[in-house]
């Protein structure tokens, strides 16, 4: 018995042969008792296997969420609250940072030349004329500085002012480019005289309370939703 015949017989037994192959094999079976005997043996072996009782499963193999490391399904609104909570938290930290950094930046603004072309501290109450003549472009600086943090401008000495004006001859270009500024040069200096005690914050604190409240409320709702989902799942 060769392997090819064995496969043919096995497939024939299962009705898996093409009609032409089946006809050829049947013709051989009718003349070959050895082939017929093998077919009977294969049929008997298959019949015995089919007689094996189908055992009932000893228990139910249903899965629990724990077995598959699965979390309970959350309500559809859950992602919306997650987004709101995240956004509110982000904005809260942004506004906190803004309110913290803004006064510091304002106080450092003159040194960094905010609006003053690099030498805003040229302005002082004691040397307005020199400033107006030699560095008129810088006249914009005290205006900005006075609005944001005018304190340093009032404490400058005339010496400092003079030195700074000498160190910033470049500003002369500003005069030629913006001649109109010169005549208004003194006005900001005079406006800088009334010094506010504290710089205003860019974002009112009430907004921070609102944002913190929204973030906290959203987080609490999310927590409640999750707990409800877990409880509902456990009851199933």
């Amino acid at each position, binding site marked *: 018995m060769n392997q090819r015949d064995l496969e043919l017989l096995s497939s024939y037994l299962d009705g898996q042969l093409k009609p032409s192959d089946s006809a050829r094999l049947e013709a051989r079976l009718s003349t070959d008792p050895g082939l017929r005997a093998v077919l009977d043996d*294969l049929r008997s*072996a298959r019949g015995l296997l089919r007689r094996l009782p189908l*055992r009932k499963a000893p228990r139910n193999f*249903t899965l629990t969420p724990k077995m*598959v490391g699965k979390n309970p399904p959350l309500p559809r609104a859950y992602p919306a609250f997650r987004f709101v909570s995240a956004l509110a938290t982000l904005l809260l930290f942004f506004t906190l940072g803004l309110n913290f950094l803004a006064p510091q930046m304002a106080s450092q603004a003159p040194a960094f030349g905010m609006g003053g072309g690099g030498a805003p501290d040229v302005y002082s109450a004691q040397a307005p004329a020199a400033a107006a003549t030699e560095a008129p472009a810088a006249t914009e600086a005290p205006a900005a500085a006075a609005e944001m943090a005018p304190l340093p401008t009032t404490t400058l000495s005339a010496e400092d002012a003079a030195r700074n004006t000498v160190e910033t001859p470049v500003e002369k270009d500003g005069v030629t480019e913006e001649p109109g500024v010169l005549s208004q040069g003194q006005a900001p200096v005079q406006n800088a005289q009334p010094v506010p005690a504290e710089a205003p914050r860019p974002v009112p604190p009430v907004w921070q309370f609102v944002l913190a409240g929204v973030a906290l409320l959203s987080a609490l709702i999310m927590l409640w939703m999750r707990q409800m989902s877990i409880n509902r799942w456990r009851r199933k």
Partner: protein
Amino acid sequence: MDEQALIHDAQGGNLDAFNTLILHYQDGVYNTALRILGDGDLAADATQEAFISAFKSISSFRGGSFKAWLMRTVTNACYDELRRQKRRPTTPLEPDTDDGEEMDSPRWLADPNMTPDQKAEADELEHALQHCLNNLPVEFKSVVVMADIQGMDYTEVAIAVRVPLGTIKSRLARARLRLRECLQGFEELLPASFRLEEGTST
């Protein structure tokens, strides 16, 4: 049972839907594992592992025969178990009795509705068949279990074991031949209609 709908829901993470599928298929999956491994406890473990694995990878099911896909999972779980057995000392296939001796036949699986004589005969025949199955190479065993015991067609078996159809035909034919040869040693246990004639085909 709307199988396609349940599969779709399970793919969306619905564990209840998948558990419904488990209840439908668990007997077949367990019996496949039982015949491949030859041990009830190991078969139960493999079945549980197979269902866990199937749920985790159900998104990879792309249609076709879900039974064949499940059988592939349980066959893999059985192969893993057999590999573990090779690395570790084997346990006896029969459970121990109270006094520590091995039972001659797997009576713990017997159908309680049979008469004692029928039960004894069925147990002995089952024992003989399982013994012969255990002696088959595992790749033959999985094919013959799915085709002849589970009644799956060749295409389903090919999907389940991921081999070409021609290989399935070849393995099945050789597995049946080996079983026939093995069962000649248990001739007296076989029902009269299944008695085999010796030396007919080799």
